[in-house]
């Protein structure tokens, strides 16, 4: 197998043409071999990328922009592993990684949670057997709290400051305990969390109250692999799935009644918390009244074939990758 971590240039930020999706193809800048499948990755800072591998290893790569090369900066071998090494496909995959420089948290098929710090060799903390099933994804709730989802349909909050190896709160789906594959938190309103399940269902949770989701939205026909709130326009949510579709969920309504959370054009600012936390308006995501807040849902892929495994958004730019070994860049998302 020849797996690689690659850095691409998707064209100039300023060369926005009229209509159309891409101005030219993305150019490969550099790449480096990676041992095992890349299960998840995140930028730690401008230069460093943390990559989770199916071998259970977590690697930090550094992108040298002056000569366009990648090098392995730091590595935690066997961050995730099964105790009995006799199984033929040894090792437990590291399934998710989240960064908040310099903190790095990883989760894996071994049900373990690791808390690393960049440039520190030993783990800050490891919670063995945090979960009896596979942890599929992790994200930061606050600086010291994380959210994890597992394969028995549970969303758990962990407080990294606490010494006990128990979650501080457990939420679960009603009905069938369908495995949850992805989780994301609203960028500004931290009590709103979205998760995606194996049955393609999108669940929105209010973690201040209750232990079950606030709303369940029937979405995809197969596993939802990733869910992301738009970092600067959080009325927009994006989900991608094994069924080959990528959906754009738009709860932004006409500007007449509500203050608009949208920032038109440009590379927007990312932190609106001082503006929005005190808003009395209930976020459209938690609304139970389907008539009041209409949600527009669009499938962004015209001819779908194979699974869309991953997506990311920043400003007006959307990137996603499919099992047909193709990467797509859409630089005019809100045009």
């Amino acid at each position, binding site marked *: 197998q020849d797996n690689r971590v690659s850095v691409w240039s998707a064209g100039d930020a300023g060369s926005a043409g009229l209509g159309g999706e891409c101005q030219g193809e993305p150019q490969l800048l550099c790449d480096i071999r990676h041992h095992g499948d890349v299960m998840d990755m995140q930028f730690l800072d401008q230069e460093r990328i943390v990559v989770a591998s199916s071998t259970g290893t977590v690697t930090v790569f550094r992108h040298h922009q002056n000569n366009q090369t990648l090098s392995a900066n730091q590595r935690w071998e066997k961050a995730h592993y099964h105790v009995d090494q*006799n199984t033929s*496909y040894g090792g437990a995959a590291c399934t998710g990684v989240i960064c908040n420089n310099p903190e790095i948290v990883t989760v894996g098929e071994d049900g373990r949670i690791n808390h690393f710090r960049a440039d520190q060799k030993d783990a800050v903390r490891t919670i063995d057997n945090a979960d009896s099933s596979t942890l599929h994804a992790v994200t930061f709730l606050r600086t010291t709290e994380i959210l994890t989802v597992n*394969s028995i349909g549970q969303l758990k909050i962990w407080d990294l400051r606490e010494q006990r190896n128990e979650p501080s709160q457990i939420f679960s789906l009603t009905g069938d305990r369908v*495995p949850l594959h992805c989780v994301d938190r609203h960028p500004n309103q931290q009590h709103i969390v979205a998760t995606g399940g194996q049955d393609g269902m999108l669940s929105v949770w209010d973690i201040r109250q209750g232990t079950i989701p606030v709303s369940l939205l029937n979405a995809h026909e197969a596993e939802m692999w990733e869910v992301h709130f738009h970092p600067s326009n959080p009325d927009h949510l994006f989900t991608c799935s094994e069924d080959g579709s990528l959906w754009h969920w738009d709860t932004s309504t006409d500007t007449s009644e509500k203050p608009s959370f949208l920032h038109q054009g440009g590379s927007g600012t990312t932190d609106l918390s001082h503006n929005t936390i005190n808003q009395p308006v209930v976020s459209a995501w938690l609304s139970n009244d389907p008539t009041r807040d209409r949600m527009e849902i669009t499938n962004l892929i015209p001819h779908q074939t194979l699974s869309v495994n991953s997506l990311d958004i920043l400003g007006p730019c959307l990137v996603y990758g499919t099992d047909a070994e193709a990467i797509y860049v859409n630089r005019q998302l809100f045009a």
Partner: protein
Amino acid sequence: GCLAGSGESGPRPPRLSVLRRDQDIYIPTLRKLFNESHGIFVGLQRSEEELAGKARKAQLVQVSKNYRSVIRACMEDMHHTAISTRDAALQSQYSTQVSILSAMELIWNLCEILFVEAATAGSLLLRLLDWVRLHVCDVDNMAREVLSSENPSKHELFWNVVDIFVLQGRMDEAGHLLSKEASANPASVNMYRILDDLMKKMPLPTLGNTQTLTEMELKWQHWHEECQRYLQDGTFASNSHMESICKILLGDEDAILEKKELMTTWYHFLVTRLLYSHPTVKPTELRMDLFLGGESSPEPLDTILMAAFEFEMHQVIKECSIALSNWWFVAHLTDLLDHCKLLQSHNLYFGSNMREFLLLEYASGLFSHHSLWQLGVDYFDHCPEYGRAYLELHLERIPLNTEQKALKVLRICEQRQMNEQVRSICKIMAMKALRNNRLGSALSWSIRAKDAAFATLISDRFLKDYCERGCFSDLDLIDNLGPSMLLSDRLTFLGKYREFHRLYGEKRFAEAAKLLLMLMTAHIAPSSFWMTLLTDALPLLEQKEVIFSAEQTYEVMRCLEDLTAGKSGKQKFQDDDEETMKVEMLRLALARNLARAIVKEGTLEGS
């Protein structure tokens, strides 16, 4: 690769067969070919069958063009890689690949013209001309070189370029170059004007309905006679180059053959000759013009092209299968031709038709790759006879090294109702999880497969752990089973038993007692657990207040008697003292409770 050897005994010398895996799927640049063509293939299968006639044909031609553009894109990538690599061996490998891809595109293009578009007289020649211009000789580079020189008409390649333009019917470009000669050599201006005029006036078939073939033929006849007159008048006698051009215009075979080196291939010669002697050629007439011009042993490419010109589709496919190292080309081309309704069912010995056979071979090849197998699934889906069987067998053999991969395979099986494969894969993953002590994962897999037997296995594991350690592991799982609890009796028991413990811990004794009793009487507890359940009743029996009603106490007593009666006489002797003591204690407690309960129930309210 692998080796197979026959036995050592016997008079025959041992034989070794070397089997080699299909190497092509591991070439990185070809992966783009496989991926993109997969998209085109699937699109074709799903395309509108209701479209008829011209619309359908246009659609199929577009599909063919798409395939070809993918081949070209691959060729460019491969070419880039070839020139940028330093390794000589690798470079030669890539260059070989480029020429193979180029040949593939050449053949496909011809098949598109002759079979998919089925060009008729008139447009046939135009298409063939395009084909030749695209694929044969690098004339544009030469032209650039000549034009950028100081004295183009004195350049050594000048007349070569002009000749090639004429041979390919590119009159405007030929005229443009000739004008350089005219301006450099004023004596030839007259000749140039006449020749240029002749070239520009040459009647050609047009696309669309602007003229009928008979009209065109008539015009052509007149033009031909005019050229003949100029030649016979000796207009070009003083310039041998221009004279030979005029002869070419007249379709003089010797004149054309003289330029053999420039044309480089026999098919270029074929098209040129048709252009100048029979522009309204019909498809069926092509085979009459074929000859290799003295080639003794034709290359595979030549054989294939000849078969195409002769409209021997099956021959084309057969020759391509032999010549090319993987099935990609023949599989996709045959599928396209089948959609054009051009292939009669050509029964092979195992009864499937040729299209299906080729697709099966191609897709099977994909399955040996660790990630391209996903493409293979769609190909099998569109093989009506054996596709499903092949798919089932292949899916079972995909190594499941991560859970995500297993999930993808599972999804494929579920979408096709391959229930046995679903069960089998879930069982494998559940067993792996169990061995790694990930009980939650194991349960999650059994739920997916609705595998009650495995759920029972997992529950037994939990119960065993409980008996050994006195407490439950993985409470986050057991406390949150939800509806999945109903998957198996044992699992339900586990969930309810844990609930009993919770109720007891919360001091909700009446509810706990009721639940315990239900567990005992519902017979979902494993027999090994009955004693434990009864023992669990003890603390409830010995509470200050009466928890079990008389009725309930009778039930518990019955359970106890059922349990002890079930043991044979011999067993009773072998029971250790602890067991007998427990039973005695229970009997005593039950009796006491019964007494208290009867009293309590018999007393009037307010006691």
